C-alpha cells in the first residue's frame, strides 16, 4: 500500500512537471489577450503621446528593417533618428531593431513568419499580389486607413497606395519611389565622342562603339534574375500596351508577338555581347562594381542606385561622372514610348496583432517617419524619390546631379507603369526569372520563353478565378 502510494505520488509529480512545462506562462498571455481586444481598427485609444504623466511601463516593439550594409547606411541613419525620436515620445518604448538582408527577408523570413502568425510588429514590406495583398487577405496586416486619418497625413501622400490597397483599405506605407532607367558613364562617353543615350540610335551606336573598344556596353549581373528582369520589364512595356496589368486579366499574353519581340531583343543583345560576359555568374553588386570600375559604359538599374555615386558611398569614384536617362523610345514599337517604370512598392507594414501600447508606438513611428523632414532627407541623402508631396522649395534643395536627372526623367514621363513582379503571381514571376536565364544562356528562344511563362500564367489565373 505504502509503495503504491509512493509510486502514485511520484507519477503524479512527474506528470504535473511535464504539464507545467507544456503550459503557457500566465504573465505572457495577458498582452495577447489585450491584443485580441484591441485588434484593428483600434484607433480611438492610445495616441503617440498617451498619458505621459503615468509612470511608464517598459515595453518593446520589434522592428524588422533591410537597411544593412554600406550601401544602405544613409537610409539606416534616417531610420535610427526616427526610432530615437519615437522612443523619446512614447513612454517606456524600446524598439528592437532586427536587420535582415532584403531578399532573405522578403522571400524567406517574412513569409515563414506570416504563415506562423508571429511576424514582427513593424516590418519592411513590399506591395503587390505576392506580398502585401496576400498577407492582408490573411488578416496579418494592420489596416492603416484610420491611423492615416487620425494623423491627418493621408492626403499628403502621392498616389502611391495602389500596391498596398485591398478593398479600399491601406495596409502598407511606401517609404519612397523609384524609376528604372539607364545610368551611363559620362566620362567614358565623352572620351569616346559618344552622345548621351537619349535616342535609340545613340544608344545602339554607343553600345557598338564601346564593344569595339573592348568595353562592355551594359554592366549586368544576372545571377539573381530580378536584375535583368528590370530591363526586360521596361522593354516589354515599350513594345506592349496594357502591360503588366493585362497579364492577370488575360488581355496581355506572354507569348504574343510584342512580348516575344522584347525577349528576342534581349537575346539579340546577349548575342551581340552588349552585356557583361558570364553575366549569369555575376551578382547585383558585381554589376555596380563593373560599372564603377569603368569596365562597362552603361547599366540599367533603379534610381535608388544614385546614392552609390556620391562622396563617401560605395562607388564614390564615380561622383560627378554619372548620367541618368530613361530607356529611349523604341522605333516601331506599339507601347507608349514616353512611359516609365515607376514603383512605390517598398515600405513598412504593421502587424494586426498589437496591444494598446504597441499601437501607440506604431502611430508614433508612422508620424515621425512619414514626415516632410524625413521624406526630404530620404531624397537628399539617399536619392529615394519621396512618396509624399514635397513643396517646390524642398525639391529645389536637391543638389545631387544624378538625383536631379532622375527627377527630370520623371517629370518628362508621359505615363508610368509598375514592375510586373507586383502584378504577376509568385510562381509566374519565378518562371520569368528561370526562363530569362535560359534565354541568356542561349537555351531558349523568345517564343519558347513566352510560351513557357504563358502556360503557367494561365494555370495561375485559373486558380484565382
Amino acid at each position, binding site marked *: 500500500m505504502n509503495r503504491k502510494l509512493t509510486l502514485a505520488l511520484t507519477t503524479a509529480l*512527474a506528470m504535473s512537471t511535464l504539464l507545467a512545462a507544456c503550459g503557457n506562462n500566465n504573465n505572457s498571455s495577458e498582452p495577447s489577450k489585450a491584443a485580441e481586444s484591441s485588434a484593428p481598427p483600434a484607433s480611438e485609444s492610445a495616441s503617440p503621446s498617451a498619458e505621459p504623466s503615468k509612470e511608464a511601463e517598459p515595453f518593446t516593439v520589434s522592428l524588422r528593417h533591410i537597411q544593412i550594409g554600406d550601401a544602405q547606411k544613409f537610409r539606416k541613419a534616417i531610420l535610427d533618428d526616427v526610432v530615437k525620436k519615437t522612443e523619446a515620445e512614447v513612454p517606456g518604448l524600446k524598439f528592437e531593431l532586427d536587420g535582415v538582408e532584403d531578399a532573405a527577408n522578403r522571400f524567406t523570413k517574412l513569409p515563414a513568419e506570416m504563415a506562423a502568425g508571429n511576424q514582427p510588429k513593424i516590418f519592411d514590406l513590399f506591395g503587390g499580389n505576392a506580398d502585401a495583398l496576400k498577407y492582408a487577405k490573411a488578416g*496579418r496586416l494592420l489596416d492603416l486607413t484610420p491611423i492615416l486619418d487620425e494623423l491627418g497625413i493621408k492626403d499628403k501622400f502621392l498616389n502611391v497606395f495602389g500596391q498596398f490597397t485591398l478593398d479600399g483599405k491601406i495596409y502598407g506605407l511606401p517609404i519612397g519611389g523609384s524609376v528604372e532607367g539607364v545610368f551611363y558613364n559620362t566620362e567614358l562617353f565623352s572620351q569616346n565622342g559618344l552622345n548621351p543615350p537619349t535616342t535609340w540610335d545613340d544608344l545602339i551606336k554607343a553600345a557598338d562603339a564601346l564593344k569595339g573598344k573592348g568595353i562592355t556596353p551594359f554592366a549586368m549581373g544576372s545571377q539573381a534574375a530580378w536584375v535583368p528582369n528590370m530591363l526586360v520589364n521596361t522593354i516589354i512595356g515599350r513594345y506592349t500596351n496594357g502591360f503588366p496589368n493585362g497579364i492577370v486579366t488575360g488581355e496581355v499574353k506572354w507569348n504574343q508577338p510584342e512580348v516575344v519581340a522584347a525577349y528576342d531583343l534581349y537575346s539579340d543583345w546577349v548575342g551581340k555581347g552588349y552585356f557583361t560576359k558570364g553575366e549569369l555568374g555575376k551578382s547585383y553588386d558585381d554589376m555596380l562594381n563593373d560599372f564603377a570600375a569603368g569596365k562597362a559604359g552603361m547599366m540599367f538599374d533603379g534610381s535608388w542606385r544614385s546614392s552609390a555615386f556620391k562622396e563617401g558611398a560605395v562607388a564614390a569614384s564615380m561622383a560627378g561622372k554619372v548620367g541618368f536617362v530613361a530607356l529611349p523610345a523604341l522605333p516601331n514599337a506599339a507601347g507608349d514610348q514616353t512611359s516609365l517604370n515607376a514603383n512605390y512598392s517598398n515600405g513598412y507594414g504593421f502587424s494586426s496583432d498589437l496591444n494598446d501600447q504597441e499601437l501607440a508606438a506604431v502611430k508614433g513611428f508612422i508620424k515621425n517617419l512619414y514626415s516632410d523632414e524625413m521624406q526630404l532627407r530620404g531624397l537628399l541623402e539617399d536619392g529615394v524619390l519621396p512618396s509624399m508631396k514635397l513643396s517646390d522649395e524642398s525639391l529645389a534643395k536637391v543638389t545631387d546631379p544624378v538625383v536631379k536627372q532622375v527627377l527630370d526623367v520623371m517629370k518628362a514621363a508621359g505615363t508610368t507603369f509598375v514592375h510586373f513582379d507586383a502584378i504577376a503571381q509568385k510562381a509566374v514571376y*519565378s518562371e520569368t526569372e528561370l526562363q530569362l536565364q535560359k534565354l541568356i544562356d542561349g537555351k531558349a528562344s523568345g517564343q519558347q520563353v513566352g510560351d513557357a511563362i504563358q502556360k503557367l500564367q494561365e494555370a495561375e489565373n485559373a486558380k484565382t478565378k
Partner: protein
Amino acid sequence: MKSTLKNPAVYIMFVLPTLVLYGLFFLYPMFSSVYFAFTDYNGLDATEYVGLDNFKNAFSDTNFRTAIINNMYFIVFSVGIQVPVIIIFALLISNVKRLKGFYKTTVFMPSILSTSVIGILWQFIYDPDIGPITDFLGWFGIDPIYWLAESEWAMVAILITNAWQWVGFYIVLILAAILAIPKDIDEAAAIDGANARQRAWYLTVPLIKPIISVVVMLSIAGAMRVVDIVLVMTNGGPYGSTEVMASYMVNKAMKYGEYGYGTALALIIFAFALVLTFIYQRTFGRTERIEY
C-alpha cells in the same frame, strides 16, 4: 526493492517521459507532415485536402525531374569516382613511413570546415576573372570557363567541391580499418612474394570490404540529402540546372510558402533515400564478418 522491479508500472514510469518526448518531437511532426502532404497548406489561406495532387505535380514538374537527375549525378559521382579515390588515398597514406599524421590531418581538414566557408572559398577558386583555375587554364591558352554561370559546368563544379569536402572524412574512416589489419598478414604475403600492388588489391581491399560498404552507403545517403553546398554556391542556378531535390523543396516551401507541396516533396525524398539504401543493403551492401 525486489518486488518494485517486478512491477511493470515502474518501468512504464521510467520509459514514459522519453516516449512522450519522442512522440512530441518525432512522431507528431512526422505524421502531421504526412497529413500536410495531402493538403494545399500555405499557412495563410484555409487548408484544403487535395488528394494526390502534390505528388502528381511533383513528378510532372520538369524542374523537379531535373533535381532528381542531379541527385543521381551526386550518387554516381560519389560512388563511382569518390569512393575509388578515397580507397586509393587511404592505401597510399597507410603505406607512407613519415608524416602520416600530417597527411591524415590535411585530408581531414575540409570536413571540419563549414559548408558556407567551403562554398565561398570555391566560388573564389572558380572565379572566371581572378580565380586560380582561370590562371592555370590561361597558361595553356584556354579561355576562362564560367564555372558557376554555365549550365554545362555548374554541376561539375559543385560535385568537385562536395567531393573535396567529404573525401578526407571517409579516407580517415578507411585508414582506421586498414591500420587495424594485423601486420603479420601483410608480412606473410610479402614473404610469399606479393608486391605492394598485389597486397593492396588482393589482401587489404578484401579485408576492409565491410567499411567500404559503409562508406558507399553513407555516400548514397549523403548524396540524397545534399542541399547546403548547392544553396551556398549556386542556389540551384543557373535556371535550376544545379537544383537538387532538397534545394527544390526548400525553395518551394520557404520561398513560395507552399508548405503542403513542400512536405510532399520531403516525403518523396525520404522514400527515395529509403528505397535506394534498402536496395543497396540487399545487394552489394551484404558483407560477411571478417575475423583475423
